[in-house]
């Protein structure tokens, strides 16, 4: 995929990757960021022109110094879509990216054509709490996210330059610090009261064995978003799109084609 840097008003910028042909969709990545050999990204580009922005902070924590809240995040992506000339967007987000996608769709409902939330978080139930992502050392976050406790080979290395152990840790720290900024200590920034604003057709996909966000949270999103549909993938965890890529895409493709 091609790498681009998009300049935004006010001196900010956004790094992104773009590739594939077809209708444009925006991919909002999860905690692993954008990896060269990301199989989900590769599958998306088979039928779509995929715009994959790197979340602010993942590359440089200074980028989120002035992005303090999920509202600031929504503003950031709105400026990015303007800069890209995307009038209406189809958002496909995974994990942290799904939370951003849901927030964006709630902040700018008229601008979102379709919304696919893969393993989203951002809601909270006292009786079935979301697990603490940081109850394992953050460098070992994969143990919570994958059903096997281990990442797939394509997603195991945080850096394109695996030879520099310090920079590997820096990348991981930047990603996890960014996520922490928007979910610490509890991943609930009142998304629930904004979700009824969403008007886009919405699909929610979760792994049945997600150890981080229990699959029952799919129902919570469906309850709050009018007309939303949920699909639970058996034998998969938070990384369901990576663990069950074929099944995820069977559901996702049919949703995007409708």
């Amino acid at each position, binding site marked *: 995929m091609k790498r681009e840097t998009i300049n935004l008003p006010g001196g900010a910028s956004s790094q992104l990757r773009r590739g594939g042909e077809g209708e444009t969709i925006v991919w909002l990545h999860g905690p692993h960021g954008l990896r060269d050999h990301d199989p989900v990204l590769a599958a998306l580009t088979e039928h779509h022109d995929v715009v994959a922005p790197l979340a602010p902070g993942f590359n440089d*924590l200074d980028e*989120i110094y002035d992005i*303090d809240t999920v509202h600031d995040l929504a503003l950031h992506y709105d400026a990015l879509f303007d800069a890209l000339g995307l009038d209406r967007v189809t958002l496909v987000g995974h994990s942290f990216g799904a939370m951003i996608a849901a927030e964006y769709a709630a902040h700018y409902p008229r601008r979102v054509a379709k919304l696919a939330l893969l393993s989203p978080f951002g809601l909270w139930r006292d009786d079935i709490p979301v697990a603490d992502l*940081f*109850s*394992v*050392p*953050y460098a070992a976050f994969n143990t919570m996210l994958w059903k096997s406790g281990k990442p797939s080979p394509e997603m195991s290395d945080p850096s394109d330059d695996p030879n520099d152990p*310090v920079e590997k*840790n*820096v990348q991981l*720290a*930047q990603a*996890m*610090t*960014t*996520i*922490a*900024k928007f979910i*610490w*200590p509890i991943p609930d920034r009142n998304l629930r009261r904004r979700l009824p604003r969403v008007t886009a057709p919405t699909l929610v996909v979760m792994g049945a064995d997600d150890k981080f966000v229990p699959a029952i949270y799919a129902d919570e999103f469906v309850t709050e978003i009018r007309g939303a549909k949920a699909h639970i993938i058996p034998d998969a965890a938070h990384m369901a799109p990576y663990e069950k890529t074929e099944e995820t895409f069977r559901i996702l493709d049919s949703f995007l084609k409708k």
Partner: protein
Amino acid sequence: MKFHWFHLMPYPHLPDDFKEKYKSVWVDLPAGEVYDPVKGHQVYNDYLDQLEFAERVGFDGICVNEHHQNGYGLMPSPNLMAAALTRRTTNAKLVVLGNSVALYNPPIRVAEEMAMLDVMSGGRLVSGFPVGTGMDTAFCYGANPATLRDKYREGVELIVKAWKTRKPFAFNGKYTQLRYVNPWPVPMQTPHPPVWIPGGGSVETYEWCVNNDFLYAHLSYWGYENGRPVMDGFWETVDKLGGDRNPYRAGFLQFIGVAENDAEAEKLYAEPAEYFYNRCFHIAPQYYNPPGYTSIATMRQGLTGQVVKASQNLRGANVKWKDLIEAGCVVAGSPQTIVDRLNDMADKLHVGHVMLLCHYGNMSNETVYYNTQRFAREVIPKLRNRFSEYEDKWWPKSPLGEVQKPAPLSTAAE
């Protein structure tokens, strides 16, 4: 050199199978199951007695600190302990190390309480501002680790500005907005009590301390040899920023065990030292370093990595006295042995302020007094003149000749 008697105030009744039974001494150790408030009554009173004793035998400062939800240190509010000490001490400086500023909303609360302590004690306060451990801040108090350090620095700067300004001003910060900053009382010391910053090798903290003339205190449990890279980094920063190498800019913490000889030291201090390292320091690794707690610049500098490495050698496994002595975590033996080691420390770290742990783990009262008294009588006099050629600008300066003492209880009752 100056000598400060530091109390960590651990809970001394953690069970023998603590390490096997519980995952962590911090954050989620069940309070009602492990902590007994009836025993706690005696623990607090014993510990305050020990701090007061340290003043009587001639320590320069007595130190308290802040930790939350743990069996390692029972002072969620060091200011309460310091307040108790203002009434029963007259001479020793009260080193409150300190208040984790980012946890107080607004941080002016800290300016108020510390000014109260300074006025109550007659200008004897050292105001310490630690960022706080990852456990205390991010996990126990829910502080966002991504913004913790920035919020902390803004808070400290607000407090110092309020103490210096002493009349109303507006503060439009990123984390605190106040239309009227005007805390009462104002501190007795002018422009304000000395500010001490505990640090563990973060580059930003070095520069911040030097630029603001704050004392840099490396509170390490891994001995002065392991503390060298951290203090070298500090002194290099002092040079770089054009400061003078005044040893009173810096402090270091050391476990101490004074005895007749090495054999008696082991007999007296092995058990409480092993209790500290094996139980008080039994911390689940995920609570140490939440994301954002260590800055990227510090990660790239790699220094904290070395500190972590030094500590990892002594964590996890069942730590024995021999390991602690070999690593220099505990300096123990005859008074002469300790004098020699602390001279070596002063040579290598160039620190003028030494914080001594004469109590640790589950040490008995009797042993604490023995250790404290022998250190004061047989060690301090031999080191007192080190660095006497330097002026200590990081030490309380009271305007009072003598502090007012509490009225005797009998008189008050009549």
